[in-house]
């Protein structure tokens, strides 16, 4: 049997698979290069995503609310004051969460909006509600939300309420 031949073939194929692994990572910048060269995806759709224009002619008051399902275990608090934002502006606010119990807890926040029509224009770039929160006994953390209220929001919408309800996860008792 041709063992050297087998070894050579397998070596080539292994190199090919290693190259393809690298190619998978290279795809991330390559797609960008490809789109720059061809001009694909560099028009209206992309402009929308890159829109950093702030509509300073008006402002919307964002009221921040925090609810917690089991108040004996957690303290969950929103910033004390509402924030005034211009549509299109990137805003950061911080909630606070504290584990009041003597054991580690896992929980998760679920957002809701009032009025409901605001939800479509409320773009959360990053939010603690995307992830489960793991807290050690008596640990206290600050939880940031990064959002943009986009410029499509109706002119008569002067106040938007962002409300989070925090739920404990795990075995229900």
């Amino acid at each position: 049997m041709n063992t050297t031949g087998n070894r050579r073939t397998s070596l080539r194929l292994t190199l090919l698979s290693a190259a393809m692994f690298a190619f998978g990572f290279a795809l991330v910048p390559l797609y960008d290069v490809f789109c720059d060269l061809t001009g694909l995806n560099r028009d209206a759709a992309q402009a929308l995503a890159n829109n950093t224009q702030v509509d300073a002619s008006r402002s919307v008051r964002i009221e921040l609310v925090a609810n917690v399902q089991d108040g004996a275990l957690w303290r969950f608090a929103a910033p004390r004051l509402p924030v005034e934002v211009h549509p299109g502006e990137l805003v950061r606010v911080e909630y606070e969460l504290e584990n009041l119990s003597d054991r580690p807890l896992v929980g998760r926040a679920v957002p809701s909006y009032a009025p409901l029509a605001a939800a479509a224009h409320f773009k959360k770039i990053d939010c603690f509600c995307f992830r489960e929160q793991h807290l050690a006994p008596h640990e206290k953390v600050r939880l940031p939300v990064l959002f943009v209220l986009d410029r499509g929001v109706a002119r008569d919408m002067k106040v938007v309420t962002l409300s989070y309800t925090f739920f404990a996860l795990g075995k229900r008792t």
Partner: protein
Amino acid sequence: MEAVLPHGHHAAPAGLWRWLASTNHKDIGTLYFWFAATMFLIGGLMAMLIRAELFQPGLQLVRPEVFNQLTTLHGLIMIFGVIMPAFTGFANWQVPLMIGAPDMAFPRMNNWSFWLLPVAGLFLIGSTLLPGGAVAGGWTMYPPLFMQGGISYDLTIFAIHLMGASSIMGSINIATTILNMRAPGMALMKMPLFVWTWLITAFLLIAVMPVLAGAVTMLLSDRNFGTHFFDAAGGGDPVMFQHVFWFFGHPEVYILILPAFGIISTVIPTFSRKPLFGYASMVYATAAIAILSFLVWGHHMFTVGMPAAAQLFFMYATLLVAVPTGVKVFNWVATMWRGSLTFETPMLFAVAFVCLFTIGGFSGLVLAMAPVDIQLQDTYYVVAHFHYVLVTGALFSIYAGLYYWLPKWTGHRADETWGRWHFWLSAVSVNVLFFPMHFLGLAGMPRRIPDYALQFADFNRVASLGGFVFGASQILLLIVILKCLRGGEKAEARAWEGAEGLEWTVASPAPYHTFTEPPEVK
């Protein structure tokens, strides 16, 4: 374990060690099949639970988050745990027998490629027990959902890595075996078509499994190491994952079907008692499908935001796949044309494959058209489409191959009566199960939802009933295989009258070692 095995024509070592440490291609092939069967049972039970929940509107049996876990795991298990290992089982058993090689090129690596799989399977199924439950974001693992889950998501990524490593090692082994170890006289264009399709599949696997590994590695580092490949908050792009994933995902679809083409191209000529019509065109069609598979990934993401030029490109490229596939279907029908046909169980499954896979192909053409796809994406029409190509396509070809080669593997003919019952019950119920899903999708029922609007109730009930019968019918296959292992009518070396090929020149059951002296191929 026996300390020293006598050199040369020794028998199989006994006991557990034979299987754990096996380097014999036939043993490893058998292991692949039993692994696939076990996973099929688990994935199948999940499907039964899904259909039971969808039997009527409302939430009956499982909570929505559990339902999402069921659909996700069902997809991952059936693709990576059933269809791919079963085809690798065929490759292990049949490739050396069909090309006259004594074993695979790297027997020890072969052992490794198999034993990584049960570990990966265990991780995948074990993740259901972790806090938060198993992955629930769909088998495609799209961020941002996939980056927000718990520890089971990391475990699933690890399982994908293991299964990918297993596939890559298996493919390197198979490709090397086919390229270097053919019997003297067997030129590439004289190879059985099953070997050809597996050679091309192996190259596809070597090319795209590493890309999947890269994609899930990026997910893993986004989740745990603070990178932002797909995280919008850090300047990444979640859609990028879809591009990288489907660059793997579409060739993967053909990885799941090309070996099926090989099996069908072996079974149909046997029971038509004619050589395969258009052998060379079959080879070229397979290669053409493989090449096209790299150019069509965008059709999975028509609605995520893509310029019209790209949509048109992916649409036309996808429609082009129908040409080589059409050549294949034509050749199978032409092989049967004026043949002296008999309809033993393998042939029944093969004929059903040709008809039903073509239905799946047609619904694929419908979905390939971007304007239609924008309507139908994420509906049950898509579910109907890929179950037609994967169940009545890939799975039915696996059944055809099993019934066809069982006499060679066990030395006993499969029970024809039980086999026919298995076929007819499966073939009828599978259509009752999946055909109404076309109507549900056209009417707008979304996929991956545990509850639905009342107007979908009737077709869902029909589909569920079909599903229960289909699930139960698969027990017949287990009975056939067990009966075949225990005894039954002795099979001669050439088990089927019209069978051609080197595997039929060795005794049935195939001895533990075959072709230690290479056969001469004229």
